[in-house]
């Protein structure tokens, strides 16, 4: 496994239940804010009203799925943060890679109901989906001329998108890449996760002994990845650096993680090798930490084995599990935590579980390290990890 060139992150954008900007979201991490409530935009006939983390006050965009609209919002913030307007983007090869789950599924309940009832539904709902491929929407909106890719790797899509984008930059395919993830809350996903019996009716409790499952969330995060030449020329400060990326498939089960965490350990090893850094150089780990019994057990044990003593925490107590957006949102959080030299408490944790590897961060803490790790574990057995480095002073 080879050392890879660092790739600068010169722009960050984020929207989730905590807020609609990077600053609002990250401030929320240190204010113990938790905006969790039963869904307001859809109903479900379940007796238990499993709560979710909604993005509040976000307007619908006609003709576009909410997922793509969220991606656009985060992309606008990231581009502005990178000092890139339409003129600056002209003549540059800018790629787009976005991770999603809901944003690519040909799912429309109204359409299906009508079709199954032997009606002849019009194609408008399907056309909206066909028009809403997240990467294509961003490329079209900003007139980007590089490669375009929507990654559909379930819950690791956001982290994988960053890895794909960085590889394009290092491979000389693009000057810049807009990379990230987006996913919206919806009735079908909601019912699907409940059917798997991995949701909690109370606020989720990542790594806690009494954890019962996850809360779903929605949102988007995008980053501007920038190659060395463009970075030097534009002289824009890097908020962070992508130092390494690793991924590996458990090849074990469609929805359960492999108990020994072998895939996760391989992904971590690849990411660290790419960064050229040893485990002890990690200031912290932004864990996947969904709050499901299985994930938290497997993940914490793997972390204890390969990153002993490195503080870890889950931010899903603040955002819920945002599926395809999670890896990207958490990468943004990781970058800002390194920037600010502090990490939040693992909201939802109070009682240690002796079966787990150690305990997560219990209260907000200062950190002085220069690199950190963010990881995502997905249905389908994917494990994806990024190592981010502290950015440049403004």
């Amino acid at each position, binding site marked *: 496994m080879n050392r890879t060139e660092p790739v600068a992150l010169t722009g960050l954008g984020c929207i989730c239940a905590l807020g609609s900007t990077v600053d609002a979201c990250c401030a929320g991490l240190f204010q113990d804010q938790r905006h969790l409530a039963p869904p307001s935009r859809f109903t479900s006939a379940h007796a238990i009203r499993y709560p979710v983390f909604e993005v509040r006050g976000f307007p619908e965009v006609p003709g576009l799925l909410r997922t793509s609209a969220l991606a656009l919002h985060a992309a606008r913030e990231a581009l502005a943060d990178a000092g890139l307007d339409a003129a600056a983007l002209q003549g540059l090869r800018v790629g787009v890679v976005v991770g999603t789950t809901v944003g690519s599924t040909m799912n429309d309940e109204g359409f299906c109901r009508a079709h199954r009832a032997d009606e002849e539904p019009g194609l408008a709902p399907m056309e909206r989906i066909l028009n809403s491929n997240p990467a294509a929407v961003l490329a079209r909106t900003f007139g980007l001329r590089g490669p375009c890719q929507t990654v559909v790797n379930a819950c690791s899509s956001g982290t994988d998108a960053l890895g794909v984008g960085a590889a394009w930059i290092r491979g000389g395919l693009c000057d810049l890449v807009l990379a990230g993830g987006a996913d919206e809350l919806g009735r079908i996903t909601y019912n699907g996760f409940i*059917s*798997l*019996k991995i949701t909690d009716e109370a606020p989720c409790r990542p790594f806690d002994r009494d954890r019962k499952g996850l809360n779903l969330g929605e949102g988007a995060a995008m980053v501007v990845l920038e190659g060395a030449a463009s970075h030097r020329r534009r002289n824009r400060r890097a908020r962070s650096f992508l130092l390494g990326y690793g991924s590996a498939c458990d090849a074990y*089960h*469609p*929805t*359960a993680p492999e108990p020994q965490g072998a895939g996760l350990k391989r992904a971590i090893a690849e990411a660290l090798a790419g960064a050229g850094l040893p485990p002890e150089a990690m200031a912290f780990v932004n864990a996947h930490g969904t709050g499901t019994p299985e994930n938290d057990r497997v993940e914490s044990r793997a972390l204890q084995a390969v990153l002993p003593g490195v503080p870890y925490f889950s931010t899903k107590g603040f955002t819920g599990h945002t599926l395809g957006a999670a890896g990207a949102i958490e990468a943004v959080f990781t970058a800002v935590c390194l920037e600010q030299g502090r990490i939040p408490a693992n909201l939802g944790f109070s009682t240690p579980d002796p079966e787990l590897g150690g305990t997560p961060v219990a209260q907000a803490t200062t950190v002085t390290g220069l690199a950190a790790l963010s990881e995502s574990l997905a249905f389908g057995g994917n494990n994806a990890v990024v190592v981010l480095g502290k950015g440049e002073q403004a």
Partner: protein
Amino acid sequence: MDTKARLKSILADAMNLPDLTLDTYDDDAPLFGDNLGLDSLDAVELVILIKKHFGMEIVDMEEGKTAFASMNTLAAYLDRRLPA
């Protein structure tokens, strides 16, 4: 049709397990693990099938685990809990 026969017919169809309806199928054999190849995803599907066809809710998967041990234990579990 008795509960066990009804269960077998439902599972054979919904979970693609034709062997269940064979005369040679051993009703005491473990449902999960190597025998039929059922796993945790099948366990939650089974919960849904029981709710749909028998109107019964299994809330606690631990309770489900004991009931799901074999066709016989599952049929007995349903017979105990269904109205006569």
